[in-house]
């Protein structure tokens, strides 16, 4: 409420308010208000002229009633009338009413704007301030339209009072935030920047807020503010505490202004001008020095103000990340705070240190505080502080201290708060993987992790263990042994059972020599957990059992007994039942050779970005991982998994579950994955045929670009280029609807043999899971041909449209002919080679009927699209076409020759392909036969 002088107090208002406060019930209050409203209405009735005082009083009452939560639909006119009064109190009440109750009533807005204009152009600073405050409080678009041009003028005018300048700057800031398009600084820019030099600290403080906001949007225009800000800052920092009189807060000179200046500087890179930079460094040093000085006051306000500047300065140092000396000093300063008794300071110190740890200059310095941080993790009372401590530990971890940190985190995990457990688990898993030098340590750590916090171990974590164990031969025996031991605990977590089932199923033979872990013991151990597990785990265990049959023929009868039992073969769950039936049949019908092939050990997983990292990134916890750390993680990950290529090709797979056992819902038939499930698919292949993944495939044999797939929802365009044995394919997914697709994931898999390194496929830049209506996203796939192949990789697309899950499987148009290098050769060369490839299996021939018109030009274009060189004037018969090319695979080069003889009368073709490899000839012949 306004500070009303005694003579000006509104008695009626006071009485009304006390009446309302004394009301015993809601009903009584409403009655009193109704009465008052009727009274005011009769007073505001047109025929009586009210004096300013009563008008003010009634408007005040209306305002009060409005603030009590009742609708006010009259009195606006009276309030607007008050604006033109010359008394401060009346004008102020008028503005107050307008700011609180304004609505976009066009005629009133016009009147209000008019009154504001009058006040702005008056020379009375109080009235100008009132008007500016009203504009800022309302802040509507209409206001911005009316005054956005006027206010900058007031702001930079020479004769404007300081207090008005302050209001103008803040008002402009508000308008800029609500409608940035209307506030055009252009011509005023430099003069606004020079407000930083203003004598009046209040004006500088107000202006700097405006400048910070403006320079975030267009940094270049306000670049000049850097040097001004630095000089201002240095003047403040170097001033004695008495210099700034009114702006010294508990012995700290202008703390708010300093913080704002430091924050403004964080919008820009380090100044290039040496002098400016020197001065800034000096300032920062002074600030750091001051932190060391003994406090001038015991009051908490003093230390708060001081620390606020200090933390802002440290953020600036971190932002610049170029002054090793300062960074180390900052780190030391923060180290002191780590043991401060103020919890807030400890929190801030941990948080800032997290960012410091990622800087190369201060990483080592941060590491020296490891003991303190570990201690904080253990003893800190506040969970948010512990969370920060955990973040910092994660950030400071490197190869040298990984074992210690991981051990500490693991031991903390046992007592950790539920809210941060999952994140902790992910962090431990990542660190263990990233810095593992010795894989038995890694396996131990993860198994420990599952034992301690099994519930919080997400799928990704245990998938990752299995991927690593499978890819590393040296650790498999150890893993099997440890898992076996871990499973002997009377109560072990389901995730442990999953890992155990998988690993024993694959590598149980490695420990079968020991009578304590003989095959039957292993099986009984696993089966003792079977009934306590959920359906997916049971399914996994069934797969482990069939693998056991292959590994240890002596367990066959026991396992068959289990599979044959009613609880399996008649299980109500389709997945389990199907597995039981199929495994039982497989084990009883197939010969040992077949079994051995089908149930062969899992091939190593292709190299890829750890899915755990992606998960942590998704969690986006504060202080999670910065981008460069992620990249580092990738690098290290590549190193760890040795096997495949490194770094650059690493890719992320949106649904890693498909890569392990096809455990996701749905029978193994649809889970087109390189798993036991899909091996099964090959055995029972009748049921497998995908609906029509090949429908579009034929079209792409002779061309590289086009539309791969289209329906009402989705269009998939394709663009591809091949060079030697490498290819790159761009897939464009276009959303044809106006609704966004969510959880859009794509998986590229190579079914069956294709996976076994015949063709290497990596997907690049994992897609956003969202595609907006009408939008298009791009995905890049890298392809490497290792040896020749005949099948095509599958692209599986899943997304939700509306509520329904759409699932789509397409064959990617990667055919062997894509890797052709055209070879030009003369006629006799051709025939010489033709003769060389005369073995019967090297030739494939087909005679077939023409599907299209026999147009020479079209045929030529198609043959060129095939990738071979079309040789003119080679064949004695000009009607015939001959081509030559070499298929480039990583393993070998396969030269191929082709001859196409059209017979126009019969509308028939004879196609002959000869190549150095029989499979290639056949495949090429098949592919081409469909084209003409």
């Amino acid at each position, binding site marked *: 409420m306004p500070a009303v002088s005694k003579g000006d107090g509104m008695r009626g208002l006071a009485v009304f308010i006390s009446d309302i406060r004394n009301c*015993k019930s809601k009903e009584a209050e409403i009655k009193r208000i109704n009465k008052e409203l009727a009274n005011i209405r009769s007073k505001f009735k047109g025929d009586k002229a009210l004096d300013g005082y009563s008008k003010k009083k009634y408007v005040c009452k209306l305002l009060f009633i409005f603030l009590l939560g009742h609708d006010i639909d009259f009195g606006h006119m009276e309030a607007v009338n008050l604006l033109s009064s010359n008394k401060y109190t009346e004008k102020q009440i008028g503005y107050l009413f307008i700011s609180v109750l304004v609505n976009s009533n066009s005629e009133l807005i016009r009147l209000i704007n008019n009154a504001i204009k009058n006040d702005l152009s008056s020379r009375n600073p109080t009235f100008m301030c009132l008007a500016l405050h009203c504009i800022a409080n309302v802040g509507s678009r209409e206001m911005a339209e009316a005054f956005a041009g006027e206010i900058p003028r007031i702001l930079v005018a020479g004769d404007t009072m300081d207090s008005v300048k302050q209001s103008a700057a803040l008002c402009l800031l508000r308008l800029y935030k609500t409608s940035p398009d209307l506030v055009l600084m252009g011509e005023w820019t430099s003069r606004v920047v020079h407000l930083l030099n203003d004598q009046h600290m209040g004006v500088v403080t107000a202006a700097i807020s405006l400048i910070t906001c403006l320079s975030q949007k267009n940094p270049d225009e306000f670049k000049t503010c850097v040097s001004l800000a630095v000089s201002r800052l240095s003047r403040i920092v170097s001033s004695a505490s008495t210099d700034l009189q009114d702006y010294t807060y508990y012995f700290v000179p202008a703390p708010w202004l300093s913080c704002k200046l430091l924050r403004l500087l964080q919008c820009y890179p380090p100044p290039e001008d040496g002098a400016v930079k020197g001065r800034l460094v000096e300032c920062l040093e002074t600030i750091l020095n001051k932190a060391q000085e003994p406090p001038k006051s015991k009051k908490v306000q003093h230390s708060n103000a001081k620390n606020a500047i200090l933390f802002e300065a440290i953020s600036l140092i971190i932002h610049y990340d170029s002054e090793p000396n300062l960074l180390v000093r900052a780190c030391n300063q923060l180290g002191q705070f780590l043991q401060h008794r103020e919890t807030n300071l400890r929190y801030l110190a941990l948080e800032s240190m997290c960012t410091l740890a990622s800087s190369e200059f201060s990483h080592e310095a941060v590491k020296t505080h490891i003991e303190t941080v570990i201690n904080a993790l253990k003893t800190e009372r506040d969970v948010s502080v512990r969370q920060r401590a955990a973040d910092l530990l994660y950030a400071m971890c490197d190869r040298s201290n990984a074992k210690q940190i991981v051990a500490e985190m693991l031991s903390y995990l046992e007592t950790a708060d539920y809210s941060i457990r999952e994140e902790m688990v992910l962090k431990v898993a990542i660190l263990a993987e990233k810095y593992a030098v010795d894989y038995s340590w890694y396996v131990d750590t993860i198994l420990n992790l599952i034992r301690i916090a099994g519930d919080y171990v997400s799928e990704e974590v245990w998938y990752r263990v299995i991927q690593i164990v499978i890819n590393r031969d040296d650790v498999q025996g150890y893993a099997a042994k440890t898992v076996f031991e871990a499973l002997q605990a009377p109560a072990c977590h389901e995730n442990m059972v999953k890992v155990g089932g998988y690993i024993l199923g694959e590598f149980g033979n490695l420990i079968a020599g020991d009578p304590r872990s003989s095959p039957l013991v292993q099986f009984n151990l696993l089966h003792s957990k079977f009934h306590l597990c959920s359906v997916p785990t049971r399914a996994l265990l069934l797969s482990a059992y069939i693998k056991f049959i292959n590994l240890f023929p002596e367990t066959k009868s026991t396992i068959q007994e289990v599979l044959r039992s009613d609880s399996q073969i008649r299980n109500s769950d389709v997945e389990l039942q199907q597995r039981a039936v199929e495994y039982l049949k497989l084990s009883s019908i197939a010969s040992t050779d077949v079994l051995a092939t089908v149930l062969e050990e899992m091939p190593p997983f292709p190299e890829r970005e750890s899915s755990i990292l992606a998960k942590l990134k998704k969690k986006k916890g504060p202080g999670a991982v910065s981008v460069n750390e992620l990249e580092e993680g990738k690098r290290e990950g590549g190193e760890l998994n040795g096997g495949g290529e490194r770094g650059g090709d690493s890719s992320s797979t949106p649904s890693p579950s498909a890569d392990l056992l096809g455990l996701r819902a749905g029978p193994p038939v649809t889970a087109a994955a390189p798993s036991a499930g899909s091996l099964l698919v090959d055995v029972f292949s009748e049921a497998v045929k995908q609906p029509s993944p090949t429908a579009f495939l034929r079209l792409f044999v002779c061309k590289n670009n086009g539309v791969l797939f289209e329906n009402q929802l989705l269009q998939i365009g394709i663009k591809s280029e091949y060079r030697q044995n490498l290819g790159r394919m761009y897939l464009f997914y276009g959303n044809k609807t106006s609704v966004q697709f969510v959880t859009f994931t794509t998986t590229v898999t190579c079914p069956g043999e294709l996976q076994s390194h015949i063709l290497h496929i990596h997907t690049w830049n994992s897609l956003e899971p969202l595609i907006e209506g009408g939008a298009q996203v791009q995905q890049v796939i890298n392809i490497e041909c290792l040896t020749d192949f005949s099948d095509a990789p599958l692209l599986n697309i899943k997304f939700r449209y509306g509520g329904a899950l759409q699932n789509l499987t397409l064959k990617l148009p990667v055919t062997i002919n894509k890797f052709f290098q055209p070879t030009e050769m003369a006629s006799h060369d051709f025939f010489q080679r033709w003769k060389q490839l005369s073995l019967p299996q090297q030739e494939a021939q087909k005679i077939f009927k023409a599907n299209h018109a026999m147009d020479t030009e079209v045929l030529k274009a198609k043959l060129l699209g095939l990738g071979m060189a079309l040789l003119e004037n080679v064949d004695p018969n000009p009607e015939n076409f001959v081509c030559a090319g070499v298929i480039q695979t990583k393993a070998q080069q396969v030269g191929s020759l082709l001859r196409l003889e059209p017979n126009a009368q019969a509308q028939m073709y004879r196609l002959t392909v000869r190549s150095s490899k029989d499979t290639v000839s056949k495949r090429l012949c098949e592919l081409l036969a469909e084209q003409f």
Partner: protein
Amino acid sequence: MIGGLFIYNHKGEVLISRVYRDDIGRNAVDAFRVNVIHARQQVRSPVTNIARTSFFHVKRSNIWLAAVTKQNVNAAMVFEFLYKMCDVMTAYFGKISEENIKNNFVLIYELLDEILDFGYPQNSETGALKTFITQQGIKSQHHTKEEQSQITSQVTGQIGWRREGIKYRRNELFLDVLESVNLLMSPQGQVLSAHVSGRVVMKSYLSGMPECKFGMNDKIVIDKQGKGGTTDDSGKSELGGSGKQSIAIDDCTFHQCVRLSKFDSERSISFIPPDGEYELMRYRTTKDIILPFRVIPLVREVGRTKLEVKVVIKSNFKPSLLAQKIEVRIPTPLNTSGVQVICMKGKAKYKASENAIVWKIKRMAGMKESQISAEIELLPTNDKKKWARPPISMNFEVPFAPSGLKVRYLKVFEPKLNYSDHDVIKWVRYIGRSGIYETRC
């Protein structure tokens, strides 16, 4: 079952707190205060669920009564109990107010112990309660052994509502038919909805354990008799009407003393009455309702700043009867800035605090009409919303039953004591009141 019962004042302070079951903790008290009494938005629903606990509340003036339970309890039963509780308290110390509750808190705890046992409602008959819970504390100690055992046998016996050995010099009986008539009528005079909810309240001062039989012009009974061709002589006793017209009762409930099996089989209402005042039955009818008044509104908007209202009321019953306490409430727009009223009869006034013109007439005979006209000045507002024109409501009291219910007889038999039906002095009274009696305008 009810886990606990709390009584709050208007500020939400707990006046009475009685917990019957362990599943209700003290925090339930605060939960209700925070979520209902102090709620930002007014809580309209009488049942509130907070943290798996149900709160059933009724409000009497400024006092909140809340029954709390964690179980799936019959809500109708709980409310019935709460209303009964209010009745009992009113019977003991008059109006339910904060002061009265504070002054009688010992009594209330005593009552709560008696009428609820482990959350199950027990005997809540005021007459019976008053025999063993009295406000004259010392006197109760002077109960003789005999009296005490009598109380025990009464409370635990079959007829818990009446003790034995009551003696009156004059056997007297008062019977009130109290009805409230609800109406919603369109401006054109079309009945949109109408029903009557009625109660038969008795006050009996009879000796011994008399057996009573109550008869009224229930359509089913009358039709049955008409079909049977026999006319019951007692049907034309001095209390009964001339049996001219019967009414269709939509539903009815009885006091616990009425033998329901007999009502089900013969539709006769026979009972041993409690001593003193009690409610014998409640009923509801929707057909052939006599509407005592007709309201004819005429509202004319003259420009944006003026409104002319004319309302005529017509009484629609025998000219010999007199209606009383007539009050017509005419809502005014929210931007009313002044009102002038002219009326022939009664007094009319604009009440700003209620946004309405209130017109009061003390008495009015049947088949008359009266009229009021008002000029309302309006203040132009920014609001484009049109006035919603709430209906005109009316209050009155008439000395007949708008449902048409007639008491045909009320016979008293007391075989053990030597007084007969003829010796009992019987009084019958009909009062029809307005419930929500509204006419749209």
